[in-house]
């Protein structure tokens, strides 16, 4: 590797100098191109190897493609309300309009704070209840032997693959006949168990050593004690994973709250935001983007805390 380094450094410096020479000479397109070449040159200098610099360059380019719309969202959210879509050249606001956030959060027409409360209340209740119910099922499907266990497991697995849109009408009719439409029951009860979480927790519990159960049993522990005192504490990482997945699934769920609620007071953030989009039409981009930012921010913050559980969960979920 070492003989490559001076070559990479020299080449990198060359690219930077050439980019600097050309910069400012010509059209905006050339300026973007030169900027890119300059950054690439800096990468070459920094890493000392062309191959590594190429990798970093690709990684950055991809990150830029994925995040360009998000950066745009933040910048547009700071333009004064009702500004038409600014061309990219004028994308940076002269004076950030922080009042947009106040205007959206305390909108006179749409109770965003109520949407926030609904989403937080529904999501936290669903996550808590779902973890209890699915961890019990995961325990029963992994640590205990009983007739019909495999059939039950395959029913969970099958419903995960095939339920889809088929259940929407019957579930709606059920909620209607229970008188639950447009109540918190309709937003919470259909989510309190999930085949995916059952599957995930079962897979994890299967990997714990069975000697633990036997030792506890010899000490006279019953199944409930083993479940709550042995398996649950050891299963914390899996519970965190299932909880994280459920959190994002419920927080961003759009379809179910859309059909099971209809008063503005009962809307969740996701559905509320779509009303916001419609009521402001395509015209008020700054306020729409402020609203989008307000919905996105908690998700990203929570994700940064729980991301490591995601990696583990996805890997666990793919084991067949």
């Amino acid at each position, binding site marked *: 590797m070492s003989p490559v380094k001076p070559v990479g450094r020299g080449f990198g410096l060359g690219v930077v100098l050439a980019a600097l020479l050309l910069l400012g000479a010509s059209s905006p397109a050339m300026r973007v191109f030169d900027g890119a070449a300059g950054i690439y040159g800096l990468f070459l200098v920094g890493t000392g190897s062309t191959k590594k610099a190429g990798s970093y360059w690709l990684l950055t380019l991809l990150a830029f493609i994925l995040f360009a719309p998000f950066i745009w969202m933040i910048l547009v959210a700071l333009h004064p309300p009702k500004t038409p879509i600014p061309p990219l050249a004028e994308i940076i606001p002269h004076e950030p309009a922080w009042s947009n956030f106040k205007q959206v959060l305390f909108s006179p027409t749409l109770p965003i704070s109520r949407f926030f409360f609904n989403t937080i209340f529904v999501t936290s209740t669903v996550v808590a209840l779902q973890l209890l119910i699915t961890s019990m099922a995961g325990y029963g499907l992994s640590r205990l032997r009983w007739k019909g266990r495999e059939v039950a497991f395959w029913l969970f697995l099958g419903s995960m693959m095939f339920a889809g849109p088929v*259940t929407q009408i019957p579930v709606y009719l059920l909620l209607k006949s229970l008188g639950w439409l447009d109540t918190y029951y309709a937003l919470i009860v259909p989510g309190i168990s999930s085949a995916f979480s059952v599957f995930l927790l079962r897979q994890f519990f299967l990997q714990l050593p069975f000697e633990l159960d036997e030792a506890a049993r010899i000490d006279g522990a019953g199944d409930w004690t083993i479940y709550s005192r042995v398996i649950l504490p050891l299963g914390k990482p899996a519970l965190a994973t299932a909880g994280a997945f459920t959190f994002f699934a419920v927080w961003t769920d759009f379809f179910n709250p859309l059909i099971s609620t209809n008063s503005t007071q009962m809307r969740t953030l996701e559905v509320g935001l779509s009303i916001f989009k419609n009521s402001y039409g395509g015209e008020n981009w700054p306020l729409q983007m402020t609203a989008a930012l307000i919905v996105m921010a908690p998700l990203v913050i929570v994700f940064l805390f729980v991301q490591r559980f995601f990696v583990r969960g996805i890997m666990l979920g793919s084991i067949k």
Partner: protein
Amino acid sequence: MKRWNGPLFVAPAFLHLLVFALVPIGYAGYLSFFKMHLIRGERHFVGLHNYSFLAGDASFWNAMWNSARYALLSVPIGMVVGLGVALLVNQRLRGVTIFRTLYYIPSIASAIALSMLWIYVFLPQNGMINTFLGWLGIRTDTDFLANVSWAMWALVIMAALNGVGPKMILFLAGLLNVPPELYEAAQLDGASKPRQFWKITLPMLAPTTFFVMVTSTIAAMQIFTPVYLMTKGGPEDSTDVVGYHIYQEAWVRFNTGLASAQSFILLAVIAVIAVFQFRIQRRQLAGYGT
């Protein structure tokens, strides 16, 4: 007493599965034999009429075809992007985990926020793509979402880029499971890097590839939210996918029976695709001797 503990632990989740998945699937099948209006609640038994009507309903098969087209485009593209990104972030580079985190973020973003952003990306005037094209000297004002030949591609590209996170992690897990001795042996035999990729990496990834293919095909066949928020099935029904078509039938036209029949046909099609993919997979795995 003790032998009931297993079923007792599973009972709450299983009851929920019965009430919110298994019975509804059966009930949807039952409803598909009726002509029924959701709001007025009138209900007449019509036997197989809904199915025979749908057999000749061009708009329904257009929707089925649109979903198939969406799946055929978005699944392979999404898998190639996912594998490519996994290879990229599988290198030993300082700070590469930061990029893994960054690439995952769009996958957890709310569909509404993403749709709003990508409406902008595809806008005709001052939209992101058209602006970039303008900088490259290509002057267009294509309204990608309102253009019959572009709208579907717009949805596909958006899904492939924003859905890269989970696929990347799955392929990454698969790559980490390839025994390094294989590469060492290949290197001794003088196999080139591309040859190692085709002869070692891809075959060893077969189970992962299969898992990603099945799950993303099933998800793609049911796509709804981006269509609802971005194209409303248009222009000229070119993005009227079956998930959106069923939504319209059930919740806009309130034809409960007909919508149930449609969702049942979709269920059957998905089941056939899944079985078909499992068959192919078994043959492939046998070929690799695993």
